[in-house]
């Protein structure tokens, strides 16, 4: 019987001081896939030694944490989210020792490492499932959710609507149905079974012991099923989370849990519990509304959703992002909003997938540098820890013809040379083809070229991250929206302790004038944070600013 083995002998201890337990609140997270980042052995697939070679780049970018997409043994039918061994390393990416070395080197660079914890389901190739399906009285049988009929949990929505007809699939071996919220090859684990919970804790312990700093927990809302419910966000699911959190806090108090719960803010809020469930959760509904706001040239969608966002416990944080390895999800928008997003951002129906848009940031912004800067500027200044998706810092494009979400998972473009500097393999061997069109191809968009220019997107992103990290008002401050009459201008104050930052974004493609009511800050001097130039002192009258198209300001408000 296969169970999780004992933790590896050599634990990698973070070299940095036992650390602020709230470090994740100040984090700038860089999401990458080992497969896509750098190939060290010329097999066409990125790997940990390759990633290790590029760790200086990640550090130089200024991010403080790396989130690694699944790197476990897997049939790779769902980008590695179909795990067949929770404590192994997919041989394509290296060995446990390679991973241990990566942790060591990352920590030396003050980079935290966050890994995936895909606990809702396994691959159907996982030995647990193979055992469970082998006979109805197998001890593992109850590790999954089985039924003799496919009419249990009727009405529960199907997430992958484009490919799945039901949440039940027929298992011809044990002649019964198994439950899956995602693909049919990803049977859901049964968290009503205490053995499953214990096993998952062992998995976490395995990686935490090695030195992993946090876990991004996949598909959280779906852990438990109950008849007559949506099978999402159930109280029993929260019990599972509390159980794992309690264990983690007891043994690894500075590690953290990040929830993937694609839900409305009010439904995500319970996942923070009383500060005893997740440390961080992604704010999914915010992301599409940032895109919507820029297209509508109206701050309303962003303010609406942030005003609907409940307060969270002091020790918790939102995770915010523009793009990630999945489609730009449109589950948490109204029908009208979804239609609008499709019409504005995915006129080509090939860009649509499930309830979303499978595109990267740069193509969504039509490669408009000003809009890219504005979007990143908002990402770095709104409440939450920002997550950057690899390649977006250089404006990489996508290829919607690669099927599923592979179009946004193409190899990192390091240079204009052979295979974009990603691999020395024959181009045909690459796990996915490189982008080669004249606009987004690696000859045009690559790290090497952008490193040479202080004005490249990459250089600008580094500055942006540096400035973001210069004030805790961004990472820990409260937000207060200003409501100037001009709806095209999105302005807010971030404030914590003595630090105050005024952010003014022009969401419009045209220049705008705006009068801000800053009487509360009468006497303060706004100092523009990128150049350090002081602006006129704030008085009693409305503070007049003009902004160029898609321009934004960050002002440190100083009392001198």
């Amino acid at each position: 019987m296969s169970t999780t083995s004992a933790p590896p002998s050599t634990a990698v201890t973070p070299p940095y001081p036992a650390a602020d337990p709230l470090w994740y609140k100040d984090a700038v997270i860089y999401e990458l896939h080992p497969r896509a980042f750098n190939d060290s052995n010329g097999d066409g697939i990125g790997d940990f030694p390759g990633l290790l070679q590029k760790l200086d780049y990640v550090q130089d970018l200024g991010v403080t944490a790396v989130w690694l997409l699944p790197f476990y043994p897997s049939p790779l039918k769902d980008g590695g989210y179909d795990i067949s061994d929770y404590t192994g390393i997919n041989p394509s990416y290296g060995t446990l020792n390679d991973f241990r070395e990566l942790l060591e080197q990352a920590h030396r660079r003050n980079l935290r490492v966050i890994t995936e914890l895909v606990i809702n389901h396994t691959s159907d190739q996982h030995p647990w499932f193979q055992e469970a399906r082998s006979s109805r009285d197998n001890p593992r049988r109850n590790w999954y959710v089985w039924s003799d009929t496919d009419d249990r949990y009727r009405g529960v929505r199907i997430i992958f609507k484009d490919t799945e007809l039901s949440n039940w699939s027929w298992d011809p071996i044990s002649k019964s149905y198994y439950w899956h919220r995602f693909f049919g090859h990803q049977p859901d684990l049964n968290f009503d079974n205490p053995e499953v919970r214990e096993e998952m804790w062992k998995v976490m312990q395995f990686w935490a012991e090695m030195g992993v700093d946090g876990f991004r927990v996949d598909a959280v809302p779906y852990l438990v099923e109950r008849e007559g419910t949506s099978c999402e966000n159930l109280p029993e699911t929260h019990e599972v989370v509390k159980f794992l959190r309690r264990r983690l806090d007891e043994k690894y108090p500075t590690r953290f849990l990040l929830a993937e719960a694609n839900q409305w803010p009010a439904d995500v809020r319970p996942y923070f519990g009383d500060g005893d469930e997740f440390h961080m959760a992604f704010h999914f509904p915010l992301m599409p509304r940032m895109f919507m706001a820029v297209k509508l040239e109206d701050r309303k969608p962003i303010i609406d959703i942030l005003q609907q966002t409940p307060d969270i416990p002091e020790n918790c944080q939102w995770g915010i992002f523009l793009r990630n390895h999945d489609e730009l999800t449109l589950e948490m928008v109204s029908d009208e909003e979804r239609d609008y997003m499709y019409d504005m951002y995915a006129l080509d129906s090939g860009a649509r997938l499930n309830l979303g848009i499978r595109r990267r940031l740069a193509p969504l912004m039509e490669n408009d540098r000003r809009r890219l800067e504005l979007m990143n500027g908002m990402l770095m200044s709104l409440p939450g820890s920002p997550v950057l998706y690899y390649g977006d810092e250089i404006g990489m494009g996508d290829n919607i013809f690669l099927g599923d979400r592979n179009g946004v998972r193409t190899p990192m473009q390091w240079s204009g040379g052979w295979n974009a500097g990603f691999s020395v393999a024959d181009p045909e061997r690459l796990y996915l083809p490189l982008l080669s069109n004249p606009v987004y191809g690696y000859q045009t968009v690559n790290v090497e070229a952008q490193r040479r220019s202080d004005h490249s997107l990459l250089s600008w992103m580094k500055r942006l991250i540096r400035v973001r990290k210069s004030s805790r008002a961004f990472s820990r401050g409260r937000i207060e929206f200003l409501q100037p009459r001009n709806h095209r201008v999105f302005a807010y104050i971030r404030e914590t302790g003595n630090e105050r930052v005024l952010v003014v974004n022009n969401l419009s493609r045209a220049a705008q004038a705006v009068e801000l009511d800053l009487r509360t800050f009468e006497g303060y001097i706004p100092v523009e944070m990128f150049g350090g130039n002081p602006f006129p002192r704030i008085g009693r009258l409305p503070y007049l600013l003009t902004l160029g198209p898609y321009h934004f300001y960050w002002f440190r408000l100083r009392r001198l």
Partner: protein
Amino acid sequence: MAEESFLSDDFVSQLTAVGEVDILVGLPTLNNRDTVQRVVNAIIVGLVKYYPRERCALINPDGGSKDGTTEAVQAASIPDFRAVLASNPLRTMHVVSAQYPGVRGQNEALRMLFAAADLLGAKACALFSPDLESLTPEWLDAMVRPVLKDGHDFVAPVYQRRRFDGLLVKNVLHPLIRAAYGYQVEEPVGREAAFSGRLAAYFLGDESRREDFPGLGAHVWMTTAAMAGGFRVCQAFLGPRVAASKRSALDLNTTIQEIGGSLFRCMEIQQAYWTSRQGCEQVPTFGFQPVLDLDPLRIDRRRMYQMFRTGVDQLESVLEKILSPATLQAIGEISKAEERHFRFPDDLWAKTIYEFASSYHHSAINRDHLLQALTPLYRGRVSSFILENAGAEAEEVERKLDLLRQDYERLKPYLVEAWNRQT
């Protein structure tokens, strides 16, 4: 010396915040607190329902209301859009209130709207009355869509009227404008209107806008200026129009002063256009025409007849200066008819109107007096019309009105000749 701006700094500041728009809705007000909130809400729901993606603003020029009208406009809100429309607005909706300068009423309000439309680059503008009780969100769509989606420049409303309602329109304005300007527009002085951004800019720059058109006269000017300017004109069905403030029969003198006088003045301004205009075209009509059987309007026909006879008798010396001897004689003869046999024939009525228009143009007498003299004759025509159509079905009434329009058209050379006659 630079011309002083008629837009206040505050208004400009508010417009700056609104920025470029696709649709601008104008809502001029003056002491309409009791009705205006419902109108604002209907407009906002209409915008959100039919134009969720367009950039919209509602501009409320106010004449200095003392009853809290602008506060009511600003306070109007839809607490729960989802309950009304099953969706929420995508965009910010700006509602701008500003007081217009001077005492020229509707003219100044319109001037502000034209300026706002021009400044904000509006593609379509719509104008609604603040006392409308029958306004639904659908009205907004009916008016705006022909401009925004079909490239029309001016949309006149078509109301569903009760029998014997709108007789001034049916007997004077519609047939006269149809014959003179060559457009078959049912309601040339509708209180509602829609126009394109380019027409708003034209209105703003048109010198004739500076004329002091009283009351509804500004609407006559808009309609005829759009026609004379060669803009694409159409009309849209709206349904029955119910407003809180209704003009009583006692206002007839004023109404004729406002509407008749404005039309005659517009004909002077635009004479180069209409005197050379040939033929008459049907304008496109948008929307769904509901079939409703509305009760006829009650009019005291006998009193109208008596006032006609008294007027003809007492105003003979005035009418002599306005009408040709033949027309005056014919009117004199019909005024002697017994009430039950009384008829004001279509061709005689058309000639009468044409001679009043020409005399107005030639300033045969003081223009106000001239218009006052038209009132009793109009009463005679109304009395005759009601008598003729007392038992008629709607189709029969329409057929008879068509005959009247034909007479107007047939006699247009008579109008042109009289208009151009040297005095």
